[in-house]
């Protein structure tokens, strides 16, 4: 048997790992506008993409233009991404809605910083969780992922591209400054060791193609612009042919389909990691760098004789409801530590519906949530 090739190990910043992940996933277009703490993603892309076959890097005039360029690139069949932080994320919301409506795959990385407004430029925060869910106008589904260490930055970026392509939708990767600016050893996977998914292109002749047709998965195939399938793309509510419509039955069909194509694949989309949750009395639910502090706290609690567990959320939205409900069958207490005033604990409380006590730990001072803070709350039971 051939020995599997040894994986390459590199010492990388979280933001660097995002770039590695994107390139492994097949990203060939980056359009962005600089802002800390996300800037390294853009800088490394600026150095790398021009050296790659067909790699395009564009520094745009602002975040609105960045999103426009990324969507334009995606329409031509490319895998495209942008990266930003807080205020830039707010500006991207308009065209993010467009990407949802026009079902354009793309990846948006938001390295959160303190806010509102220009807030705390390079301090850790997790204040954009609900903005990621509801920032753009209208009722819409959205996939939001996160990562708690540098290896996950790489892995989740690949996952983000795969989900974007699979479900024809923008995917947001929410990171926090601690993860983005941590430098640690990671492994680059060898080719073939990870899945790379690309959007389905139509197999029917152009005359038969309907760009927003109902399909089994709810995801219509998507040809590159200029490949002979001429169709209309719009942010207006449209019919199956892509043309604007206000007919109630067509409006409802579209809205239901774009929700269903995400909702019904919860087993594929909702990713979590469970640590000692099988028998836990107290379960910490955390994400991003806070999940690292939480893991340490849980292990310390165990050595103190408390049955603690951790549900680490890798997918923030659609909220991993199933996995939380399973834990609710036994845990008496849920602890939700976050670097915000309680944005994810809202989701937890919604699913909990009074089954367990929900204790929140909230920090908004630009400091990380420490293991001892979490341990203290766990020990209170």
């Amino acid at each position, binding site marked *: 048997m051939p020995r599997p090739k040894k994986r390459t190990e590199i010492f990388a910043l979280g933001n660097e790992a995002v770039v590695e992940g994107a390139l492994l996933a097949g990203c060939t*277009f980056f*359009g962005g506008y600089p802002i800390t703490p996300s800037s390294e993603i853009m800088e490394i892309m600026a150095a790398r993409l*021009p*050296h790659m*076959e*067909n*790699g*395009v890097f*564009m520094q*745009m*005039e*602002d975040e*609105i*233009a*960045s*999103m*426009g*360029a*990324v*969507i*334009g*690139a*995606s*329409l*031509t*069949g*490319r895998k*495209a991404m942008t990266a930003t932080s807080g205020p830039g994320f707010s500006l991207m919301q*308009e*065209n993010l809605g*467009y990407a949802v409506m026009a079902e354009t795959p793309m990846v948006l990385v938001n390295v959160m910083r303190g806010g509102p407004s220009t807030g705390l430029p390079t301090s850790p925060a997790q204040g954009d969780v609900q903005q990621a869910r509801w920032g753009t106008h209208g009722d819409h589904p959205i996939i939001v992922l996160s990562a708690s260490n540098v290896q996950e930055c790489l892995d989740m970026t690949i996952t983000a591209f795969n989900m974007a392509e699979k479900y024809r939708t923008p995917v947001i990767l929410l990171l926090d400054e601690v993860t983005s600016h941590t430098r640690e050893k990671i492994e680059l996977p060898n080719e073939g060791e990870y899945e790379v998914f690309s959007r389905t292109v139509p197999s029917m002749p152009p005359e038969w193609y309907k760009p927003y047709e109902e399909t089994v998965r709810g995801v219509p195939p998507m040809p*590159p*612009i*200029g*490949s*002979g399938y*001429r*169709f*209309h*793309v*719009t*942010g*207006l509510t449209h019919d199956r*042919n892509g*043309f*604007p419509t206000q007919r109630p039955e067509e409006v409802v069909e579209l809205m239901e389909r774009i929700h269903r194509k995400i909702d019904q694949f919860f087993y594929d989309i909702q990713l979590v990691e469970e640590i000692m949750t099988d028998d836990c009395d107290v379960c910490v639910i955390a994400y991003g760098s806070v999940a690292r502090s939480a893991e340490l706290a849980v292990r310390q609690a165990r050595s103190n004789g408390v049955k603690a567990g951790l549900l680490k959320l890798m997918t923030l939205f659609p909220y991993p409801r199933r996995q939380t409900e399973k834990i609710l069958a036994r845990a008496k207490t849920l602890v939700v530590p976050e670097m915000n005033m309680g944005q994810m604990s809202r989701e937890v409380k919604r699913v909990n519906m009074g089954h367990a006590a929900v204790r929140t730990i909230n920090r908004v001072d630009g400091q990380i949530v420490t293991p001892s803070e979490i341990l203290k709350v766990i020990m209170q039971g």
Partner: protein
Amino acid sequence: MSNITGNEIIHQYLRHNKKFPHVLCAGCGHGIVLGTLIRSIHALGIPKDDVVVVAGIGCSGRLAVYVDFNTVHTTHGRALSFATGIKMSNPKLHVIALMGDGDALSIGGNHLIHAARRNIGVTAMILNNNIYGMTGGQSSPATPEGATTMTNPYGQLDHSFDTVELAKGAGANYVARGTVFHVNRLEKIMMEALERPGFSLVEAITPCHTQFGRKNKYKSPVDMYKWLKSTAIPVERFNELPADKRVDRMPIGVFVDRGKPGYEELYYARQERFLAQAAKGGK
């Protein structure tokens, strides 16, 4: 000049399933601009599949629905950013951005300046009707001083933008202005703009009687076309006029024709050099 007839245009270039009657008012100049664009593309022999029309939001933005090209109806003011992504991703495509004056000069002003500065190989077409048509006749940056609008019931105080000067200053490669009254000239300009490398901009003056004319002493759409006829003057002749005679005249024609290569061309040429160096460098 292209000699395709009305019927041929309908059958070859318009989308007839469900898209008609169109949304434009009687007398609106926007349809004439679209006709010009179609005839120019036809005359140049550009295949339909190679054309991408990227439109903004407004009455002008709705034009994209009617033509059988690859069409992208974007967000208000953002057409040029989408167009930039498309052109950079696939430089073989002819990317045309259709925008209104509010669309391109107000909310999209920043994108316009930077698309021109970057010299991205996109043909931008600004349909200037001096007003926000679709939203009901509010002032735009192109509304002339003194004109009455829904948001300037006492007369426009703001100075109005000169699109041509703006584009020139920002570095556009090709800048021209025409009117829908002078259709043949507009078509000639449009063909030139489509052929030029880099960023080319055509400002088409097109009347909106519904939202602008009625409130500004033009009793009928015909009056508006008469106004275009009497106001527009070729730029060469305009330049010869003494200053006091220039006040109420509008120069039309070609203002800039620099012939610089487009941004995408420079980008991909550099990339090719990098790739060639890497190939030589071993492995």
